[in-house]
């Protein structure tokens, strides 16, 4: 029987996938209906894939609405798929997938995340079987070492090294922890992996736990990801039933108990020692390192923490060998990386590419460049710990080292693309607003330093910047970077430093000329009425809150710049485009 499979990740559901599913279910006749996770082409959601009885993908239908359901159902039943050709994905959009290399996302959007058999049918749990039969823990670590896999959460620390340290750390009781507290605004690959392929995370964790010698493990998931928690819970239950989790896994001596702990909303808990504090039920405040978690982690026992995407690569590496993974990428960065492409991009979504492609390849080659015919200005990478990379550096290769050299970081993989209408000072302010709110308050440089930086940025965007503000910002940046206790504080100045480095002219225009070149800062906008376009409809004068617009009916109006409070009400209300904003 033919089968229609609907993409039901959070994004798909938000775009209406569940309504499409229900509508199709109501007219189901002569075909099966199923769900899958996120294929990563978020801009085309809701998406439905039509498979034939042999499981071959025949058609991918996009941007569906419940109203399309009867037509789609009839087409699938009769086999006349050409009748829904208008709903089919365009070739140029379909190309996005062929330009990717999918390892961490290998099952995403293809298998049913709520069905363990769907995972095992596609080589699922083969790697743990192989490991338990053929490998010693040391050999597993050796394979991971050969692969060159590094932490995908942001820091890029070699995974094998952490595993090895935890393995060698004395003590019987050890813990493996998965950091799924994906807090970087603009990154959602961890959510997508858990929602779309939860068993690959479980399998990666099984292999990791075997390697370090842990019999208990946690997944620390953001509470903001209810669907991910739901699917992971089901996956754990199913894996326990099939003896992939629990005591004496697959008849071996190896046992693992896996539990989910829901985070409660604190960005700093992405820092590993803060995460451990939170796991223990306390405020998530980072600890001093050393001792590192490998020596003293959860309840002071040796612990190892890796990110979701890191674990999602592990089973593939075991199945295909470390060399196959290391064959991709650059000298210093091996394998692939998943990026969340968002912002002013034409084709936003999740993309996984081998390291070594350039930023331009990803943003323009895969993402299709900027929306609405606007001009590219910058790409923000690494969230609040990262920075803004300008157009002149678009040919930078994606590699931990090369990206760090720009002042940004690889980070967890958020790529927020900005166009000419994005103000870079405001962008820096946005991130500092975030870090001041998320600073845990334990150390002074971060708690007070970020606040003072925010205040300076705030006054600059309001046209109250002082001549020495740039210099002050730079001093503060250095102080916070050097003085903060943990990664949050140490990297908090990066958004300011990179915008100062690449977009200093925008700061200078705000401070010196009281002008926002991007036209985003409301307090710095100037409005005037184009006399030729104004029909004298009086709408703006009537709407205007402070009586700064003068003019009589059918006569061109005028704004008194002295009285204007720059609220933009006239601009919003004008039906003739006669109000000019500059």
């Amino acid at each position, binding site marked *: 029987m033919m089968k229609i499979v609907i993409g039901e990740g959070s994004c798909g559901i938000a775009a209406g996938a569940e309504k499409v599913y229900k509508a199709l279910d109501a007219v189901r006749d002569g075909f099966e209906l199923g769900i899958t996770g996120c294929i990563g082409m978020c801009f085309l959601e809701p998406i439905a894939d039509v498979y034939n009885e042999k499981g071959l993908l025949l058609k991918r239908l996009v941007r569906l609405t419940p109203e399309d359901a009867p037509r789609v159902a009839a087409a699938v039943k009769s086999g006349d798929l050409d009748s829904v050709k208008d709903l089919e994905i365009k070739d140029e959009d379909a190309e996005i997938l062929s330009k990717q290399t999918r390892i961490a996302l290998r099952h995403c959007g293809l298998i049913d995340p709520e069905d363990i058999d769907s995972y095992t049918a596609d080589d699922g749990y083969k790697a743990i079987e192989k490991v338990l039969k053929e490998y010693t823990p040391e050999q597993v670590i050796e394979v991971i070492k050969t692969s060159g896999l590094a932490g995908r959460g942001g820091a890029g620390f070699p995974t094998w090294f952490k595993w090895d340290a935890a393995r060698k750390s004395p003590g019987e009781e050890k813990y493996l922890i998965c950091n799924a507290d994906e807090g970087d*605004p603009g990154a*959602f690959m961890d959510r997508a992996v858990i929602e779309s392929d939860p068993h690959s995370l479980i399998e990666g964790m099984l292999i990791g736990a075997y390697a370090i010698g842990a019999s208990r493990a946690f997944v620390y998931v953001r509470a903001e990801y209810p669907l991910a928690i739901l699917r992971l819970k089901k996956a754990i239950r199913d894996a326990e039933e099939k003896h992939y989790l629990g005591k004496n896994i697959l008849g071996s001596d190896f046992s693992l108990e896996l539990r989910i702990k829901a985070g*409660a*909303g604190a960005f700093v808990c992405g820092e590993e020692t803060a995460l451990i504090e939170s*796991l223990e*039920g306390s405020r998530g405040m980072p600890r001093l390192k050393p001792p590192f978690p490998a020596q003293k982690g959860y309840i002071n026992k040796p612990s190892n923490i890796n990110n979701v995407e890191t674990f999602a690569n592990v089973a593939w590496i075991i199945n295909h060998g470390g060399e196959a993974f290391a064959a991709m990428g650059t000298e210093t960065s091996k394998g692939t990386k998943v990026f969340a492409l968002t912002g002013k991009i034409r084709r936003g979504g999740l993309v996984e590419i081998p390291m070594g492609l350039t930023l331009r390849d990803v943003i323009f080659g895969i993402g299709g460049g900027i929306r609405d015919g606007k001009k590219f200005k910058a790409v923000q990478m690494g969230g609040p710990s990262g920075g803004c990379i300008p157009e002149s550096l678009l040919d930078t290769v994606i590699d931990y080292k090369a990206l760090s050299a720009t002042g940004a970081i690889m980070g967890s993989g958020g790529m927020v693309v900005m166009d000419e209408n*994005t103000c870079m000072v405001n*962008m820096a302010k946005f991130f500092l607003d975030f870090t001041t709110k998320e600073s845990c308050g334990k150390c002074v440089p971060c708690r007070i330093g970020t606040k003072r930086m925010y205040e300076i940025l705030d006054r600059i965007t309001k046209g109250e910047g002082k001549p020495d503000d740039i210099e002050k910002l730079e001093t503060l940046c250095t102080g916070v970077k050097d003085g903060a206790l943990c990664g949050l504080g140490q990297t908090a100045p990066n958004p300011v430093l990179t915008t100062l480095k690449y977009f200093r002219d925008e700061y200078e225009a705000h401070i010196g000329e009281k002008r926002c070149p991007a036209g985003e800062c409301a307090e710095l906008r100037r409005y005037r009425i184009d006399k030729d376009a104004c029909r004298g409809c009086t709408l703006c004068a009537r709407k205007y809150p402070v009586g700064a617009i003068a003019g009589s009916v059918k006569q061109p109006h005028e704004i008194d710049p002295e009285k204007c409070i720059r609220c933009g009400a006239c601009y919003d209300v004008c039906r003739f485009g006669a109000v000019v904003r500059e």
Partner: protein
Amino acid sequence: MKENNIDLAFIRGILREYEGDDHALIEILQRAQEHYGYLPEEAIYEVSRIKGIPPAKILGVATFYTQFRLRPVGKYLIMLCKGTACHVNGADGIEKAVSEELNIKDGETTEDGLFSLKTVACLGCCSLSPVMMINDETYGSLTPEKAKEILRGYKARGGDAE
């Protein structure tokens, strides 16, 4: 302690489940909030009494994490995303529209107890930005007008809707 209208049997039941587990404070508070809709003072004292954790420490944890609230929220909790992608795509304008429509600011609840507004860092639906969630429903690709229309829909349903 005054018990007001808080049914402490529930929290006592939860505490029995976590007997002997000294690291479960966050989970206990999460389940308490799920049940009561917020963390009532009485429940905090009960956790303190049974677990032997000082109330100050419990309150310290509760105020550290954004998920916890010490006051009840409206029937419809609006979580307005102000993550990077939403910011770039105009989240400030959406917030302004919501505030105008409901006459509340971030962290406030309407007088009729119907709506609460809370801005959040990232909902992870960046490709549909700007985004807001009302209870469990996510709304993407918002414009100020669209956001207002959605809210009017909820208003029309009033207190009856699920």
